[in-house]
């Protein structure tokens, strides 16, 4: 400790020295430190400490071993994996050990030598190669004094000749091994970007990760993660610098911003640099600056340095395609695949024709549908956006179609187009509700919006390249139009890049309030005067006089919420209606409660009285010009609404407001205040609509955007060159040209984007692209599935986004927080369930705040590819040693608290687990494949690395050896069978903390209530012999029998008691679905299925016998029936049931064709006299013994089942049937 402190002081001194005297010489530094220094791996190769230090990993853990010299080491143990490679960012332990102990510690670990993904990155065409190992590059680009080693590496302490403004820098560096050195003396250098801002180089391998360590911005900001590799490894810096901006008077208007990747991982994300860092050689001004590599007395080496000058203003407004930025911009990225992605995401093929094979491989992202766009988007926004999409919404994939036009020329095109779009409707703004904003903020940051969009909490930052911009939404949408979009984005954006989040009830509205929270309400364009009256009237006849108004104001629509009162008010809206063409106009007035339309003093439509929203329509003739328009409205109680639509010559039915003005001469009467505020506000002009429609078709809008008028899509007249004939495709012209020419849409593509598109156009379609693995990957990139899920080691939440995934149960760790990896997903999930999830979204993990949204379409189609790529069938599924109803009981025991205790962590339906609340056991059989379930339970870590799910079968033996001798296969089999009952599975033991168990002590106990698998008229009977039954009084049938415990009445006797109660015991057998007695029209007629009650059977109740056992009574046809049931105890097995059915004819004329159906099963076998085995499953059976005097049964096969059928004799006296059931 002391030593460190001393060294720190030294280093400070050292720094001060630097400031004054510039770089110190290596000799001085060496002399001061007296530490051993190894400059090359070769020199260090024989050093035993060097051999031990480095990075180690095993499943779920990473260790960084830092050499401190003289056999002292510091080991940093990371939970989850090494930093940047699985570390959970939380779990970290530091211990100091000697070499031998270190070797013990890492014995079961693998030593790794990580390599930066940008290592060896080649410069793009537009970059300046600053140092490529040649003498020439040193002479051309570096000031005198630059030194090169014999093996061609640049040495510390040099400054470039070239200067740069906005640019991207790539540099590779190697830090010497200095085990005894500490703090700032440990392999110190740094790169001064523009000579102003220092990104530190230091051997900070395994240290805290501070601003004065590797990846830090000196004195300004710590790195987000310490990504420093061990000394003498080659490491990379990739730095983007956006210079500070200055006005004409050289006053700074914006700080410089920097993004730094250390060894490929972003450690400084768009960080603002308020001033140059200490040690800078140049003050901040508009001039560019050189690159300076600091000499801090330590022998640091550099290679492969290049700089790409860029225009960050243009660059940041490039089309943002997260998958492209994340997976196709690195040095070794697959450019052609990236280009293929862009062909789809930029919808290139809307204009350019492609050939069949390539077409199949492009996942097209259709542009938003513009039907009724006027009802969704503010015309003012449309006007601005079309004029300069990249300025209004940096990152948009919408091209600028008019970049080459002068502003006057632009206006002539864009205005008519906007009028045309606005002719489809207009939006009505409503006030922002602060309570909703608060709820919306929570939703936005929790449900998953921030997986693709930027968090807006003012703290977290996400990389701009992988963040879909949300800019000026408050100028674009109204609350209701945005909420409607959020409810179902696919209606507008059918290609589904924005998924449906299954937002419920008020959630879309809350989100809309949040996203539009900054709306400037003063900008609303007022169209109507209104007068408000506080009156309780129920008829237009009582409409108040103007003098009695309580207030007046202006409104941008016929918005009744201006009243700020729910009931008992009236409003009079007035203005001037501009009619262009003389003719007949039809008005549609709707309201809740009353309303009236008056034009030029004449009442046109009246919707009088108190009622829910109702609409009336009337026509009238109007001349061209301005007309006085008045809309009277009153609200008495309940809901309130008002709407007025117009249709007429050249105007399809739509909202009237755009045609209404505050005054007769709207242009002249604007106040100066209005003038400034509404200077550029859009004023609808119906004269321009037709011209706009033609332009929409001719300039190319219609190529990408669907817009239907009268249910017919507007065609595009724009044609672009075909991309089908590859030889003729020019990759440096058209959209890809450095400066797009006239009439070419300007996409503002970045260099990598242009390169990728050029690459794909030069490449033949990839024949492998249609293979399942490729297809899945391609879709996961396009739909940004990788933002949440990893698969095959690719994707998953980015470093900066990872903390944005939240859970309700922090103890569950990442499993409870981060969406699951999709490795082997179709091996795990059943095909149906996977398809269901992709089609509909999922909410199976209640602890995870992020919701799996609904993608549908192309994504759901991937199910087949997932299945083909993932599904395996390789588990050993054994024979079960007992009947299914018994195996289920065993499974229940295994799941329960006294055996394998699955219920400790997993919920069971709506019953909480006793520990964490992991995924519901009752959904297992619905979601999972049986084959996978077998394999998974025997090795959870293999299938879900890092899972907290323990292996309860270590070394192939179950933790519970009492059941099936601990055989995992049989135990899993029993659990699967049990869970396969889904939400009908009986509650496992140990889960209900306080059951209301009904126990038959000395007498039977009866429970009449809603029972599982029985009609609502179920009667449960528990017998002291521990056999139980459920009788169905709608069917007159013995429906269920089971052994052991009877019923837990807790479901019905607590709270309101909703739901069906399951038997509490085990060995549940389902017997008769309907009465076993029936009259059949013919011996081969099928057994009737409808409830017996509907067939005229009448339940008559029950009588208790001397042991208080119920004997059920009913009548049908000509018979009175007594169905007497008793449990019979045995010494060697659980109890059996004995049943005595007595039929008594009501009169002497008995019925013919009367049958008793004793059992139904898949198969029925005669065991011995009168005894039959009934197979209800391949391995499951029970036995019945039947005695009816003088009657022999037939076993008939009908409707794929076997029936044990007795034809009953006609007789005048009572008939007795004895039935014994053994199961």
């Amino acid at each position, binding site marked *: 400790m002391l030593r460190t402190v001393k060294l720190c002081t030294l280093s400070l001194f050292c720094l001060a020295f630097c400031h004054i005297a510039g770089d110190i010489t290596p000799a001085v530094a060496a002399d001061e430190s007296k530490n051993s220094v190894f400059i090359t791996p070769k020199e260090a190769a024989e050093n035993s400490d060097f051999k031990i230090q480095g990075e180690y990993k095993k499943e779920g853990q990473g260790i960084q071993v830092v050499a401190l010299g003289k056999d002292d080491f510091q080991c940093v143990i990371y939970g989850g994996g090494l930093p940047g490679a699985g570390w959970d960012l939380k779990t970290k332990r530091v211990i100091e050990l000697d070499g031998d102990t270190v070797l013990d510690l890492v014995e079961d670990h693998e030593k790794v030598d990580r390599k930066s993904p940008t290592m060896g990155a080649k410069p793009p065409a537009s970059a300046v190669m600053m140092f490529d190992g040649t003498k020439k590059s040193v002479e051309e680009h570096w000031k005198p004094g630059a030194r090169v080693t014999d093996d061609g590496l640049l040495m510390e302490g040099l400054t470039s000749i070239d200067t740069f403004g906005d640019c991207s820098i790539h540099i590779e560096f190697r830090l010497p091994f200095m085990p005894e050195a500490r703090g700032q003396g440990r392999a110190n250098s740094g790169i001064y970007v523009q000579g102003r801002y220092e990104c530190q180089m230091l051997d900070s391998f395994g240290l805290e990760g501070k601003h004065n360590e590797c990846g830090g911005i000196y004195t300004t900001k710590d790195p987000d993660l310490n990504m420093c590799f061990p000394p003498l490894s080659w490491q990379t810096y990739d730095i983007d610098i956006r210079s500070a901006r200055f006005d004409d008077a050289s006053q700074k208007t914006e700080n410089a911003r920097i993004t730094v990747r250390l060894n490929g991982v972003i450690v400084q994300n768009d960080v603002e640099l308020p001033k140059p860092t200490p040690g800078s050689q140049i003050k901040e001004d508009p001039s560019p600056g050189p690159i300076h590599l600091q000499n801090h007395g330590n022998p640091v080496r550099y290679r492969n340095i290049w700089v790409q000058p860029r225009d960050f203003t243009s660059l940041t407004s490039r089309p943002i395609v997260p998958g492209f930025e994340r997976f196709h911009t690195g040095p070794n990225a697959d450019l052609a695949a990236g280009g293929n992605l862009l062909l789809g995401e930029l919808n290139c093929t809307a204009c350019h024709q492609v050939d069949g094979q390539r077409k199949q491989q492009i996942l097209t992202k259709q542009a938003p549908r513009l039907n009724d766009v006027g009802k969704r988007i503010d015309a003012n926004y449309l006007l601005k956006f079309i004029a300069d999409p990249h300025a209004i919404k940096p990152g948009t994939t919408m091209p600028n179609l008019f970049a080459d036009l002068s502003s006057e020329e632009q206006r002539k095109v864009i205005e008519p187009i906007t009028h045309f779009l606005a002719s489809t409707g207009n939006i009505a703004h409503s006030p922002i509700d602060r309570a909703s904003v608060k709820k919306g903020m929570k939703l936005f940051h929790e449900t998953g919006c921030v997986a693709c969009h930027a968090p807006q909490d003012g703290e977290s930052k996400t990389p701009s390249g992988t963040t879909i911009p949300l800019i000026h939404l408050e100028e674009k949408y109204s609350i209701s139009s945005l909420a409607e979009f959020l409810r179902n984005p696919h209606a507008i954006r059918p290609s589904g890049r924005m998924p449906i989040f299954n937002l419920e009830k008020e959630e879309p509205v809350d989100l809309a309030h949040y996203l539009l929270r900054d709306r400037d309400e003063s900008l609303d364009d007022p169209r109507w005067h209104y007068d408000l009256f506080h009156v309780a009237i129920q008829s237009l006849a009582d409409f108040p006089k103007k003098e009695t108004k309580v207030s007046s104001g202006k409104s941008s629509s016929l918005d009744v919420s201006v009243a700020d009162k729910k009931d008992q008010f009236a409003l009079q809206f007035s203005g001037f209606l501009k009619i262009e063409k003389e003719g007949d106009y039809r008005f549609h007035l709707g309201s*809740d409660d009353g309303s009236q339309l008056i034009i030029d003093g004449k009442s046109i439509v009246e919707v009088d009285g108190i*009622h829910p929203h109702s609409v009336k329509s009337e026509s009238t003739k109007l001349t061209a010009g301005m007309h006085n328009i008045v809309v009277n409205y009153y609200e008495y109680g309940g809901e309130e609404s008002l709407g007025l639509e117009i249709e007429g010559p050249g105007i399809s039915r739509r909202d009237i407001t755009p045609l209404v003005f505050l005054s007769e001469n709207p242009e002249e009467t604007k106040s100066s205040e209005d003038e400034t505020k509404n200077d550029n506000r859009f004023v609808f002009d119906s004269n321009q609509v037709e011209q706009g429609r033609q332009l929409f078709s001719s300039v190319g809008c219609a190529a990408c955007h669907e817009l239907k008028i009268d249910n017919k899509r507007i065609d595009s007249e724009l044609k672009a060159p075909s991309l089908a004939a590859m030889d003729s495709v020019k990759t440096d012209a058209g959209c890809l040209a450095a400066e797009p020419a006239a009439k070419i849409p300007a996409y503002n593509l970045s260099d990598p984007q242009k390169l990728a598109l050029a690459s794909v156009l030069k490449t033949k379609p990839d024949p492998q692209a249609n293979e399942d693995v490729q297809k899945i990957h391609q879709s996961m990139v396009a739909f940004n599935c990788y933002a949440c899920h990893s698969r095959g080691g690719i994707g998953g939440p980015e470093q900066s986004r990872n903390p944005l995934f939240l859970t309700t149960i922090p103890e569950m760790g990442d499993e409870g927080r981060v969406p699951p990896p999709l490795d082997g997903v179709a091996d795990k999930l059943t095909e149906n369930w996977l398809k269901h999830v992709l089609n509909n979204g999922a909410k199976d993990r209640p602890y995870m705040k992020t919701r799996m949204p609904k993608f549908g379409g192309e994504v759901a189609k991937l199910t087949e590819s997932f299945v083909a790529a993932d599904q395996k069938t390789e588990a050993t599924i054994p024979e079960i040693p007992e009947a299914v109803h018994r195996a289920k009981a065993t499974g229940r025991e295994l799941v329960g608290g006294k055996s394998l205790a699955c219920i400790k962590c997993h919920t069971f339906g709506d019953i909480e687990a006793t520990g964490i609340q992991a995924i519901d056991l009752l959904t297992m059989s619905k979601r999972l494949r049986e084959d996978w379930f077998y394999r998974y339970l025997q090795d959870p870590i293999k299938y879900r690395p890092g899972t907290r799910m323990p292996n309860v079968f270590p070394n192939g033996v179950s933790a519970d050896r009492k059941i099936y001798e601990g055989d995992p296969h049989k135990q899993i089999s029993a659990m699967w069978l049990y869970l396969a009952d889904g939400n009908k599975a009986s509650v496992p033991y140990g889960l209900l903390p306080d059951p209301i168990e009904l126990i038959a002590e000395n007498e039977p106990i009866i429970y009449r209530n809603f029972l599982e698998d029985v009609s*609502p*008229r179920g009667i449960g009977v528990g017998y002291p012999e521990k056999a139980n039954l459920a009788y169905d009084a709608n069917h007159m049938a013995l429906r269920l029998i089971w052994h052991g415990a009877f019923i837990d*009445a807790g479901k019905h006797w607590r709270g309101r*008691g909703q*739901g069906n109660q399951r038997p509490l015991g085990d060995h549940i057998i389902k017997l008769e679905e309907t009465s076993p007695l029936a009259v059949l029209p013919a011996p081969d007629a099928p057994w009737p299925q409808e409830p017996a009650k509907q067939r005229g059977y009448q339940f*008559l109740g029950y009588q*208790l016998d001397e042991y208080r056992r119920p004997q059920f009574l009913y009548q049908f046809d000509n018979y009175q029936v007594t169905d007497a049931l008793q449990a019979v105890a045995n010494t060697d097995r659980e109890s059996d049931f004995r049943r005595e059915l007595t039929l008594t004819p009501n009169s002497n004329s008995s019925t013919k064709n009367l049958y008793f159906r004793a059992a139904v099963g898949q198969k029925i076998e005669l065991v011995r006299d009168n005894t039959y085995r009934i197979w209800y499953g391949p391995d499951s059976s029970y036995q019945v013994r039947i005695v009816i005097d003088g009657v022999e049964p037939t076993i008939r096969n009908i409707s794929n089942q076997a029936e044990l059928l007795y034809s009953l004799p006609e007789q005048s006296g009572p008939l007795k049937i004895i039935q014994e059931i053994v199961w």
Partner: protein
Amino acid sequence: MYLKFLFSFALLSVFSSSLMADEKKLPTEDDYYPLTTFEVPENVVLEAGAFQLMPNGQLAVSSRRGEIWMIDQPFAKEVKASQFKRFAHGLHEVLGLAEKDGSLFATQRGELTRIQDLDNDGRGDLFQTINDGWEINGDYHEYAFGSKFDKDGNLWVVLCLTGSFSSQVPYRGWCVRITPDGELLPTCSGIRSPGGIAADAEGNMFYTDNQGPWNGTCSLKNLIPGKFMGHPGGNTWYDITNGAIGSKPQEPESGSRFVVEADKIPEYEPPCILFPYKKMGQSASGITCDTSHGKFGPFAKQMFVGDQTNSTVMRCYLEKIKGHFQGACFPFREGFGSGTLPLEMTEQGVMFVGGTNRGWGSRGTKPFAIERLNWSGKVPFEVHEMHALPDGFELIFTEPVDPETAGNTDSYSMTTYTYIYQASYGSPEVDHTEPKITSATVSQDGKSVILKIDKLQRGHVHELHLDGVQSAKKLPLLHKEAYYTLNYIPE
């Protein structure tokens, strides 16, 4: 006994005269109607659903857990656990008990059952299904409340909807009658969520319905065969009645008002008494009528209605105006142990009150309770009756009033309001008015006052506060407010 009674009465009189001197110690409900709580056997959860006094003097109590208990000597000063004996179990939530020829008739969720003790061992042996002609669907809302037998021997059953809004199976949302022959007679549609059913002294049948869809607040409604009670959720079953009660009525218009729709839809019978939400309660429950001819005090023939949430019993005065029952409700007694559900008045002038708060919370904190209300013999100063007049109300008091305060209009205040008749859940109070009380005229005998009102609002609850009114003995009213539902104004 007699002496003792006189003695205690004398004590009470002394007590109460001293009360008059000291206003801080005004008499309370307890002084007039003391409450006795029964001791229920240990480990028994007796969430009372219905009561029936048996010919042998035992009181039968059914429970939501499907049991029926017999209580020996239920009128005894103290009722101990040892007086309870279980008569039956295993029934499905019994919310109606009636007696005929010594047999008990229990209304279960799914059927009407006659229970007989064939061997006279105090336990039921034969459980006969008398009728199961209505259906159940497995939803917890599907309660069935049963009445006593009417003069024709029919038993009336009101059936809650499947949920708040709909009727999934036959006769949910209906009142049906079961004849002595076990036949089911469809009787009224339009029921939402009943809380109790009982007849008045003349045999007119009433039930309570609860705030929710088409019920702006809880109310007391008059069941008249063929009438529609307001919630159209169950109207689909007109199709299976074979026209027994006419054809399906016109659908009411959501957002309207009760009387507006009553004028429009001839089958629709608007609520007789609206119980203003929160003010009088939140879940109207059991009903009983004082048929004790004065043994329960001055309120002979008046109806009493429980409120489960507030753990209270309210008092209702009904009169027939233009052929429809309507009237006023008054607070009567609060402080019951649990959520008031069944009420049973006996000829002896004693009211049994059962309580449960399972699933629906109550002010009374006990999970369940069996209690008894007796009359102390003292007459409280109360508004006894409230009659609607063409231009005001006539108030009849239990005691002569002080002419000075009762004749002063400042002693009274009135507001009116109603509720929206709508498909969505409940309703706020709407259409408020504040009518002027222009005069208060005390009758010569001091027992009544006529209030002239400018002006009455048809279809509104008229909420009257009588804060300043005193009795001739200078006592304030025990309960100072009354709520009259003025569906019809007499001419």
